[in-house]
């Protein structure tokens, strides 16, 4: 038998072994619905990236709300501010929506959905194709009244033409870790903010042996949000998130999620003083 014959026989055996390996349950793949949802989200974000911002209105109306600190350094969420309902793009910029707020080391921070208008391409693969205006919402972090993550935003989520919320599915919550830093780039911590379906009644974050629970709140734009905040010296840098409906049934989970704002690579440890919002 030649070496070529040996190799050929081995690859045949390997192929058979692979076939045995994949002949098992649980390999049906993602549902068509999940694929279309994920693909649609990707398409909307890409269209937004192709668009040109031509009307950005400052969220000057957003007032920073200081909340009593828990354990000295941690943050609790504010009740969602009663921002006015988003308006039609033809009629003006939708009002910003305050998601949560807190206080870290004496610095007030606030997470806000901040709307801007973008020009979407009807065909992202063709730069010459016609465009049309649509609203896009950024997760904006305000620290001491200043918008500090404008150069490093979470993905812009495009809203429907009325500015209202596009429903997030129950089993696919969206998570955005956002750094809490001031205009001099000094970090105070991170906020893990999530957008969930209104059917989500409870979110539990697990970080080592620490567990935090929060209840999502429905904002005035009809979307439901939650947030956990971790001070910079927290050892909670990553962990899992579990999502439950009102009956206590787990409807989604996320493992190995980073709890650190995306512009930070270096972790400097510290004492386990993390306290999430509740």
């Amino acid at each position: 038998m030649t070496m070529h014959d040996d190799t050929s026989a081995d690859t045949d055996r390997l192929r058979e072994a692979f076939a045995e390996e994949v002949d098992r349950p649980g390999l049906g793949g993602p549902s068509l619905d999940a694929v279309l949802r994920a693909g649609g989200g990707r398409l909307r974000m890409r269209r937004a990236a192709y668009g040109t911002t031509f009307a950005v209105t400052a969220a000057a109306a957003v007032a920073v709300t200081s909340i009593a600190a828990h354990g000295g350094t941690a943050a609790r969420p504010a009740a969602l501010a009663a921002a006015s309902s988003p308006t039609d793009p033809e009629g003006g910029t939708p009002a910003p929506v305050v998601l949560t707020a807190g206080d870290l080391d004496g610095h007030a921070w606030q997470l806000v959905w901040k709307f801007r208008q973008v020009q979407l391409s009807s065909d992202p693969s063709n730069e010459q194709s016609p465009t049309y205006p649509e609203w896009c919402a950024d997760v904006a972090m305000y620290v001491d009244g200043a918008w500090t993550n404008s150069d490093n935003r979470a993905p812009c989520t495009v809203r429907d033409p009325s500015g209202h919320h596009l429903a997030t599915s129950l089993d696919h919550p969206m998570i955005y870790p956002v750094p809490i830093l001031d205009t001099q780039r000094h970090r105070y911590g991170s906020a893990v903010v999530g957008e969930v379906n209104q059917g989500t009644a409870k979110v539990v974050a697990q970080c080592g042996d620490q567990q935090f629970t929060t209840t999502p709140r429905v904002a005035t734009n009809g979307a439901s949000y939650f947030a956990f905040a971790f001070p910079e010296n927290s050892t909670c840098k990553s962990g899992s998130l579990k999502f439950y409906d009102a009956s206590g049934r787990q409807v989604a989970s996320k493992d190995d999620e980073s709890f650190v704002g995306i512009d930070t690579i270096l972790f400097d440890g510290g004492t386990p003083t993390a306290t999430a919002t509740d």
Partner: protein
Amino acid sequence: MSADHNRGQEAEFRDYVLARRGALMRTAYLLTGDPGQAEDLVQTTLAKAYAAWRRVRTRENPDAYVARALINAHISERRRRRVREWFPGTLPDQAAADRTDAVADRSVLLAALAGLPPGQRAVVVLRFWEDRSETAVADLLGCSVGSVRSQAWRGLAKLRQNPELSRLFDREPVTERMER
């Protein structure tokens, strides 16, 4: 672009997903060794294909685009995981226990595949599972045919050397040998 036209493209994409989802899952499973990760990988890949479907569908071979997206997504995910693993102290205790169970459940073959470097594993899976030519694999991975040949050979050699897989590569019928 008419609404009918868009609906037609979406229907076409749905058909594509239903036809190819299973095959993509099997390849993703051999690449990742974990059904959950494989499903995430396939979903990410097909979502990318959906977003680019207008262009992908006009290609001579949409499968090549999707296969490349799958490999790229896999390699990106591997890099992300490696970064996370640099900070093992920050991982929840529970996750470590889950991982142990997952490893214990893995087959000998998947465990051996996991011992190959990511690129080599991709070459082995694409060549010997998907039965793609060396040229096609080189095109997918953006490397030379010579590199594919050497990686395939080295990968196969490593699998052969694995004592746990010795029974697979001796000269008896495979079906008897793989019984566990």
